[in-house]
C-alpha cells in the first residue's frame, strides 16, 4: 500500500531532504571526514533528482548524467581523502577550523 502511494513527488521530496541534511552537515560539523561524507550526501541527493526527473520526463539523459556525477564524486573523494589524510598525519585530531593558514 505504501509503495502504491509513492509517486514521483515523494522521490523529489526525499532528495531535497537528503540534500538539506548534507548541506547543514557541511555547515555545522567540524570533523573533516564527516564534512566529506555530507558532501557525498548532497551529491547523491542530486543523483536521485536526476533519476526521478529522467523517469518523469521519460528521458534517458537524466540517468546518463548520474554516471558523470558518480565519476566526479569518486575523483572528489580521492582528492578530499588525500587532503584529510595529509592533515591527520601532521596534526592528529585537527578540525576543519584549525586548517585556516590561507586566511587573508
Amino acid at each position, binding site marked *: 500500500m505504501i509503495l502504491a502511494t509513492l509517486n514521483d513527488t515523494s522521490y523529489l521530496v526525499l532528495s531535497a531532504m537528503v540534500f538539506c541534511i548534507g548541506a547543514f552537515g*557541511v555547515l555545522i560539523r567540524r570533523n573533516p571526514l564527516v564534512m566529506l561524507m555530507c558532501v557525498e550526501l548532497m551529491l547523491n541527493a542530486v543523483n536521485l533528482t536526476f533519476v526521478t526527473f529522467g523517469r518523469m520526463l521519460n528521458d534517458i539523459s537524466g540517468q546518463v548524467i548520474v554516471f558523470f556525477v558518480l565519476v566526479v564524486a569518486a575523483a572528489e573523494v580521492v582528492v578530499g581523502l588525500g587532503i584529510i589524510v595529509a592533515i591527520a598525519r601532521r596534526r592528529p585530531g585537527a578540525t576543519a577550523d584549525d586548517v585556516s593558514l590561507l*586566511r*587573508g
Partner: protein
Amino acid sequence: MVSLVWLIPALPLLGFVILLLLGPRLGEPASGWLATAMVGAAFVVSLIAFIGLHSRAAHTYTHTYFTWISVGRFQVDFGVLFDPLSSAMILFITGVGALIHLYSIGYMHGDSRYPRFFLYMNLFVFSMLVLVLGDNLLLTFLGWEGVGVCSYFLISFWFEKPANATAGKKAFITNRVGDWGFMVGIFITWFTYGSITYTHFLPVSQSAATTAATFISVMLLIGAVGKSAQIPLYIWLPDAMAGPTPVSALIHAATMVTAGVYLMVRINPVLHAASPWVTTMIAWLGVGTALLAATIAIAQTDIKKVLAYSTISQLGYMFLAVGSGGYWAAIFHMITHAFFKALLFLGAGSVIHGMHDEQDMRRMGALRKLMPITAGTFIVAWLAISGVPPFSGFWSKDEILTYALHKSPALYVVGLFTALLTAFYMSRLVYRIFFGDARWTDPIPGEDPAEERPEVHPHESPWTMTVPLVILAFFAAVAGFINLPFSGSTKWLEDWLSPVTGRYGAELTYSNATIIVLLTISTIVALGGIGLAYLVYLRKRIPAEPFEPELFAKGWYYDIAISDFMGGPGRKMADGLAWFDRTVIDGAVNGIGSAFRGSGNVVRRVQNGYVRTYALGMTIGAVALLVYIFTRVQY
C-alpha cells in the same frame, strides 16, 4: 653608381666601430689615419654618386632599405633621399670633414685620448650624413641628435678642465631647448599630412591649412634656431670653443650648425604654405643675429671667440637668405662658408699650435714671416669672408644681399652694414695676429706686468696640418665661381638646386646693370671695412677703444643675463615645479596606489580561511539565487 649612396654614411660608421673595438690598440697615428681614410673614402663615394645622379630623372634618387618603425598607420622607413640638395651638402661635409680629420692627425699629436677623438669625429660625420641623407623627418632628427651628442663629447673632450665640461653641457642643454620645437614640429607634420617622409608630404604641402603649415614652420624653426645658433639660442656656440680646434672647425664650419639651415631649405614648400609673416620673421631673425654677433665679434680678444661670433653672424646671413626666399643662396653661402670658415678655424688652430696654446690676440703679432703657409691661407680666408672679389664669400654674400633687397630694402641696409662690420673685425683679427709688432710676451690688462712669461718661439705646423690649409684656401678662393650672377648660363648651382628650391623660391628680376651696381656697393663696403681696420689697428691713426666698448666685449650682457635669470628667478621657478611634481603629480599617483591598498586591507578580512564560512557563503548565494528565480522569473 647612385645605388652606392648607402656607403657614404656606412664608411664613417665602420670607422667608428673599428675604433670602438680596436682604437686603443691601433694607437697613434694609425687610428687617425683610419678615421681620415674612412671619411676620405666617403668623399670619393659621394663624388661617384654625385656624378651618377646626373643621369637620374629630376636628379633624384630614393631608396628604402627597411622599415624602421611601423605602428598602425604610422610608418617610418630607413631610406635615403639623394637629391641635388643632399648631394651638394654631403660633398662638402665629407670633403671638408676629411681635410679636418687629416689636420687633426697633426693637431692632436701626443694627446692621451688620441683614438677616442677620432672615434667621436667619425661618429659625428656619420650622424651628419644621416641627417642630410635621411628621407624623413625622424631620420633627420636621429642624425640631429647624433651630432648633438657628439658635439657634447667633443666640446668637453678635455674634460679635466671644469670649464670645458660646462661648455659641453651648455651646448647640449641649449640644443635640447630647440629640439623640443623640432619634435613638436614632427608631430604636427604627421597630424597634418599623415606622413613625415619628405617625398610624401612636401609635394602635397600646399594642401594643408595655413595655420597648420605656420605651426609646423615655427616649430621646426625653433629647432633650427637652436642648432644653427640664432637669437635667442646662440649662447652655446661661443662656449663651444672649449673643444679642440679641429672640432670647432668641424662643428662650426662644415657640419652641425648648418643643419638648421638645411632643415629650413628642405621644408621650403611648407614655409611657402605658411603665413607670410613666418618668412619675414626668419629674415629679420637672421639679419638681427648677423648684426648682433658681428658687433660682439668686434670686441673679442680670444681669436676663437671672434671666429665663433663670426660663424653666428654668417649663419644669420643664411637665415636671411631663407627668409628672403633665396633658398639656393643659403646653400651657396653654406658651401663657401664651409670652406673659408673651416680654413679660418684650422688656421687659428695652427697659430695656437705654433704659439704654444696661446689664444689671446693681444699676445700675437708679426707671425706672417714665421708661419708663411698659415698666414697666406688665413689671408685668403679673410678676404673671402670679408667679401672681397673675386673670393668665394663675395659671390655668396652678394646673392643673399640681393635677395634681401628684393624682400625689403631695410633688410638689405642692415645686411650691408653687417658686411662692413664683418670686414672690419676680420681685418682686426688678421692685423693683430700676422702683422704689426710682436707682442708675444706682453702683459695683457689685468695681469701683473712684472710677471715673467715663458719665452715663445712660434713655428710653422707639420705638413698634415698645412696641406688641408692649402687645399681649403684653394676652394675658399674659387668656390664662388660655381655660381656667377650675370647670366642664366653661369648660375650652375642655382640650376642644380632648382628641383628642390626653384618652385617656391623668390624670383629675382634685376638687370645686369643693377647687379653690377650692387656688386660694386658690396666691394666698396668690404674694402671700406678693411681700410678702417687698417687705420685703426695697423697705422693706429684712430684709437681702437671706441670700437671695442665693454657692451660688445661682454656680448650685450645677454649671456650674463641668462645666467643670472636661470640662477635666480629661473631656479625658483624650477624649484616650484619640482615641488608641484613631488606633491601634486606624485601625490595623485601614489594616492591611487594607497587607496587600492587600503580597500584591499578591508576586503581581505573576508578570506578568513575557515572552510565552513566559505560553504556558508555559497549556501547563502545559492539560496539568494533560488529566491530570485522563484520571485522574479515568470513561468
